[in-house]
């Protein structure tokens, strides 16, 4: 017996097998994995993506501690003069384009921009009540990260329509600062229009937070009237007051856990110690990495935990407070006095007179004794008070004075802050009033990462910060590898 098969039958057979097995056979999705192509199809997707954008805020600890080290307030500190070399360089204003820590600031803030853009570029994916609130928050976050980037690096690449996609580094130029600020303003205006005054959850953004950030951005642009408008709107919302001025509040607790997300908090970056973290991914920590790094080396005693001894306030900064200024002992821990008082023991690290041990620590963000997970130096739960009402009052005062507005109103804002610190009213006006505002701003905001940028934007950095040369040091160098990735699309900042 033989099977007879002619070529037609065979052809049909072969053809059938080909048709049933086209190349779409290999088009599969990974099972049980969430793929970007099918995302943003439910309300949950938007909420979950927003958590992802907020997550990156925790990495901005790097901006805060390095911003403070860059200023005249503190020394880099650490174990030795070469401990965290990138910070040591910035302390001496000797930073170069090869600086891992500046690279972190670049990478992490752009990561925040990308995650916020991911939501915004998909804003039409699915409709639900409350979407505008989420989009408003995403816009705020994108503006927040972009504002950090423009403060640090000046002109940056921007792409308002969405995420940067692989390859665009060679085609998207660095936009001039004015364009970056216009982008930030637009995002914040959108946020203000869409955000509720009461945030949906503790830790999320309110309309007033967006107004405060917009006012701050205007201030950096020297748009004083616009700034004053936004900042006074926050003040007039009557949602906030200076902590320690009402009820049983005690100003001394402003930077303790008990005052977190309190009445003075306009916008606050949230941290916790309930999840462990490691050095291989500092930006992954749910804790405030800056806090452990700021702790007293080898500390053993009450209240505080040990840390790595970075970001050490200088004698000059300590002395800038008058003896009766309540803020001094809230802001700076004088370790010798403290040790004498409490019998605490500690070590000193970096002995370099220009970058090392001072005897002072940044008390606002020292690790407090708590039950955080290991590595305990990386998981301190102290929230970062990103925008405080005191900051808003001082910025408003400054904007009004510099915008030739009502000096009485400005003095009032300033005096609210001074009174809380146990100081008497000022009665100055004109440039003296402005100097008073500047001086009080330094003292009020010391340890919170603003000083360097305040000095730069008011042209007071040269001569104040050792080693600072203008205009070179007004911004930091673009990381060398970024210049290389851009293949000539981006120029390095002048002087680097």
């Amino acid at each position, binding site marked *: 017996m033989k099977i007879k098969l002619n070529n037609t039958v065979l052809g049909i057979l072969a053809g059938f097998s080909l048709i049933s097995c086209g190349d779409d056979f290999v088009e599969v999705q990974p099972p049980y994995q969430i793929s970007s192509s099918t995302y943003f199809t439910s309300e949950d997707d938007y909420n979950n993506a927003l958590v992802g954008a907020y997550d990156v805020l925790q990495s901005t600890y790097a901006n805060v501690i390095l911003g403070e080290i860059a200023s005249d307030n503190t020394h880099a500190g650490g174990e030795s003069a070469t401990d965290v070399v990138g910070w040591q360089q910035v302390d001496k204003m000797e930073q170069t384009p090869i600086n891992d820590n500046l690279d972190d600031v670049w990478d992490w803030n752009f990561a925040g921009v990308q995650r916020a853009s991911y939501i915004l570029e998909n804003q039409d994916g699915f409709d639900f009540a409350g979407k505008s609130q989420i989009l408003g928050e995403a816009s705020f976050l994108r503006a927040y990260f972009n504002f950090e980037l423009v403060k640090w690096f000046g002109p940056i690449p921007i792409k308002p329509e969405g995420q940067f996609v692989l390859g665009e580094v060679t085609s998207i130029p660095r936009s001039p600062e004015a364009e970056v600020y216009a982008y930030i303003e637009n995002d914040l205006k959108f946020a203000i229009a869409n955000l509720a005054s009461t945030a949906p959850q503790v830790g999320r953004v309110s309309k007033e937070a967006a107004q405060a950030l917009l006012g701050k951005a205007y201030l950096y642009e020297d748009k004083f009237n616009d700034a004053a408008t936004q900042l006074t709107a926050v003040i007039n919302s009557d949602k906030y007051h200076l902590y320690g001025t009402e009820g049983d509040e005690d100003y001394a607790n402003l930077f303790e856990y008990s005052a977190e997300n309190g009445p003075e908090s306009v916008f606050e970056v949230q941290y916790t110690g309930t999840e462990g973290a490691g050095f291989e991914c500092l930006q*992954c920590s749910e804790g405030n990495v800056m806090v452990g790094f700021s702790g007293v080396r080898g500390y053993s005693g009450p209240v505080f935990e040990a840390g790595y001894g970075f970001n050490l306030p200088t004698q000059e900064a300590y002395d800038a407070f008058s003896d009766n200024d309540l803020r001094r002992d809230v802001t700076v821990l004088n370790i010798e006095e403290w040790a004498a008082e409490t019998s605490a023991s500690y070590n000193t690290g970096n002995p370099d007179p220009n970058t090392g041990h001072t005897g002072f620590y940044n008390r606002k963000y020292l690790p407090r004794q708590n039950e955080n997970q290991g590595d305990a130096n990386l998981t301190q739960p102290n929230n970062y008070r990103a925008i405080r009402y005191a900051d808003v009052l001082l910025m408003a005062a400054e904007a009004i004075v510099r915008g030739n507005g009502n000096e009485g109103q400005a003095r009032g804002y300033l005096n609210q802050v001074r009174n809380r610190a146990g100081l008497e009213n000022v009665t100055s006006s004109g440039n003296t009033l402005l100097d008073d505002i500047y001086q009080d701003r330094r003292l009020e905001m010391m340890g919170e990462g603003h000083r360097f940028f305040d000095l730069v934007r008011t042209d007071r950095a040269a001569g104040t910060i050792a080693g600072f040369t203008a205009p070179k040091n007004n911004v930091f160098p673009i990381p060398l590898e970024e210049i290389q990735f851009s293949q000539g699309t981006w120029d390095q900042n002048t002087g680097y």
Partner: protein
Amino acid sequence: MNRILLVLFIFCVPLAMHSQTFSVSGTVTEADTNMPLPGVNIIVKNTSNGVVTDFDGNYTIEGVSTGDILVFTYLGFAPQDIVLGNQRQINVSLEPDSQALDEIVVIGYGSQLRREITGSVSTVGDETIDQLKPVNAAQALQGTTSGVNVTPQSGAPGAQSNIRIRGVSTNGDNTPLIILDGFQYNGGLTSINPQDIETITVLKDAQAAIYGTIASNGVILITTKAGKRNQTTRISYEGYTGIQETTRKLPVLNATEYALLLNESYANAGQALPFPNVSGLGSGTDWQDEVFDQTTINSHNLSVSGGAEKINYAFSGSHLYQEGIVAPDKANYRRNTAKLSLDAELMDNLKVSTKLFYTYSKSRGINNFGLGSVLFNAANIAPTISTDQDNLDGTINLGNEVVNPLTQIENTFNSNIVNQLSGTFQATLDYAKNLSLQGRIGFNTSNTKTRDFSPIYNFGTGKIYTRTDNSVTLGKINDNDYTFDLFNTYKNTFDENHDVTFTAGMTVFKQFGEGLYGSRTGVQANSWEFADLNTATGTGEDQTNSSYAYDLRLSFFGRLQYAYKKKYLVSAMFRRDSSTKFGPNNRVVYFPSVTAGWVISEEGFFGESGFIDFLKLRGSYGVMGNDRIGDFLYLSLLNGEATYVLGPDQALVNGNALGALPNPDVKWEEAKKFDVGLDMTFLNDKFDFTADYFINNRDNLLIPNIPVSGIYGTGAPGASSPTVNAGSVRNKGLELSLSYKETFNENFSMNASYNISTLDNEVTEVNGTDFIEGGGFGVGQLAPARMEVGKPIGYFYGYKTDGIFQTPEEVASHPSQSALGAVAQPGDIRYVDINGDGVIDANDRTDIGNPIPNLTMGFNLGLNYKDFDFSVYAYASTGNDIVRNFERDQPNVNRLNYRLDRWTGAGTSNSVPRVTTAATANSVFSDFFVEDGSFARIQTVTLGYTVPLTFSEKTGIERLRIYGKVDNVYTFTEYSGYDPTASTGAPIGGGIDNGFYPLPRTYIIGVNLSF
């Protein structure tokens, strides 16, 4: 050449009959045994008149006339031509064919005569496998095939081997493709019973291109044994039992030497002596003696094969049990296999064939490689500690890792059970003249069950093994795949001179599976007996973790083979693949290749009888792919970290964020393989010589986590840079093999073969980053191996030493070494200031070794004298370096005895640094730890005796052979560690010996019996 023509003729031409003048009949027998030989083809030359012998070897052929030539052919036997005179009865006895040129070699979707092959193809037959009797079939390739390097992953029972065909070509997966009886086999070679294997064929060059995107690491084709048609049932038993032992112990210090050396190191650091009184310490505990055992291995294999006129079959079952030479009760391997092979001719033009393989394996193991392994502990624990001291508190501080290895063994409990079923069903239909259609489906399905129990035990404070709660971890993994092939073969000869074979078809491959894992503390009674999730009462982690793999591939291929007068041979192959592995922009790929050969010995000018019997020049070039790359690298998945703190209670909330940046252009690695070769036999085919020169370029290597601009958000938690095709590696080398076969008389014959392969490996491109790092040395040290342009892949990167500082003046005049961890003192290692910047720091690291051997060779010798047979297999590997990384850098651990030659003052040593417990820079990764890994190994020596037939016939026994064999007889090497083959097999970071479990030496006696 006539033989070939005839073989082809018989295959190609349907049988027919014509009337002629008279008929001839007779019996065909096997010359060796005088047994009748059924199925022999008999054909009248230059006609289509032919017959086949029946079950008793008888035949009758009609219609022949005087002067006709009868040609008797049977696969595996030399053909015979008989010129017809007036005889009517012709009995013929056929001799087994010793002509390797006429063996049929599988080449993927077809087969070819060895003499017509135009690619670089090596084969290992069952004879070799039979002599070696390896536990793992991969070992049969070591030393027997040029260009193939096999290194066991460990000497532990059941360990897999790393097979590298023509070197290391990728920073990814270098494992060759294994095709078992036509289908892709993913079980690893240890799961195949070596005694089921008929031949192993290795496709080393563009010959493999028919396999397209899975071919670039080379292809190993395994053909298993089948029965023969018209053969009486043959039952064979093969069994052996053996004793295994370690080949080597590390030369560590005894208790007194240890105490004295330790005292000196404390004194050098100005510390109090740990052993103020060393008298009475004696030699202390020899920990290696305590952990190594003489253990057993045994194997049984029973097979049955035979066939009728239209059907043939082979069944086999085997059992292997191997104990480890360390902790045989806790580390052992059991493998049971069953195989069924059935071929049937259902109709004249329809054949079906089915094969099924079942493997059950159960392995249990101890921690056997690296920091914290049993052997690592045995080499590092102090000899002053007694064997019964389980808790090391209060004794000398050995750091957190080093514990009593015997206690460690006692507290090791695990099992790993794999049940695997693989098989293939194939059908061949000769549906028209010269045309046949073959369809086949092959599959693998395996279920793996793992169980691991860590009891509560106190090894001492701070020891990493100390547990205050126990835990049980279970895993169940299911893997499945199938291969479906459908292809058509056209074979014809035109005008006698033009042989054409055309094959075209398609293959579908699909792989999928999932895993389920769970662990829980609180195991009842702290006992392995109750180690189950069900009865454990504690907390669990990963209770329902599940994983899933998915891989689909669709391929079309074609191959055209053309031969003109059997002299000029050309083949061209083409394959089109589409695969889930590749990005949407590169989903489909085409792989072309061409091979050609010129049989010079067929040319007229070559002459008839000369020194050379056969000479063929061949060349090949082709493009192949490697699809063993990560899954879904082109997809943007939301598997990044998105965790923030929200709400009044400051609670963690989880969301979604993008993970690794996708690369929509991700594609296969591309191999471009060039080969020229020469096949030659000479002196009456007694010598067989093959030479090959090859250049393999592997392009588009995938560089994981390649640095990209931060603007893409790769700095976000859980995000990472994409994997990009951005590297190239070139391997080139020369392979020579020579074999010799001679039968001197009926009592004495011999065969010998020698092969040698060179290999030159160089990374030719790494884009987007300067280098890729890998491997590990010591604890917390910089990565010791790199992939970098201009260097061999995975070369060792560390400090170069320049002897020992003898005097303070020498130290003072040398650049500061303090950046390496401590200020140098006399007696410390002097490092070279490679970049000449006046300080020794991480920038002074340089190339200090190559993990890839540049020369490998194998030698095999077989002698048969009367009823005795003797064989030796040996191989050697030279030119590679190996890193000694089994010495724990901790002040109180035991030391190798070379430390006795330490520096103790100016002029005492210029190679071994002083001992001290103070901080030094002597343990940073430098060439002090790099040794020559060259070795030569006598792998197997066998002596067998076949009991003469006259004796065995009385018992109905057809063949009875008893033999003694020694495996891993002796290794010539200067390497100080257990075994110079020590390597993880990693392309970057291989060749680092973290305390390799040595291959055992095995003494075996065995029996082969067939009825």
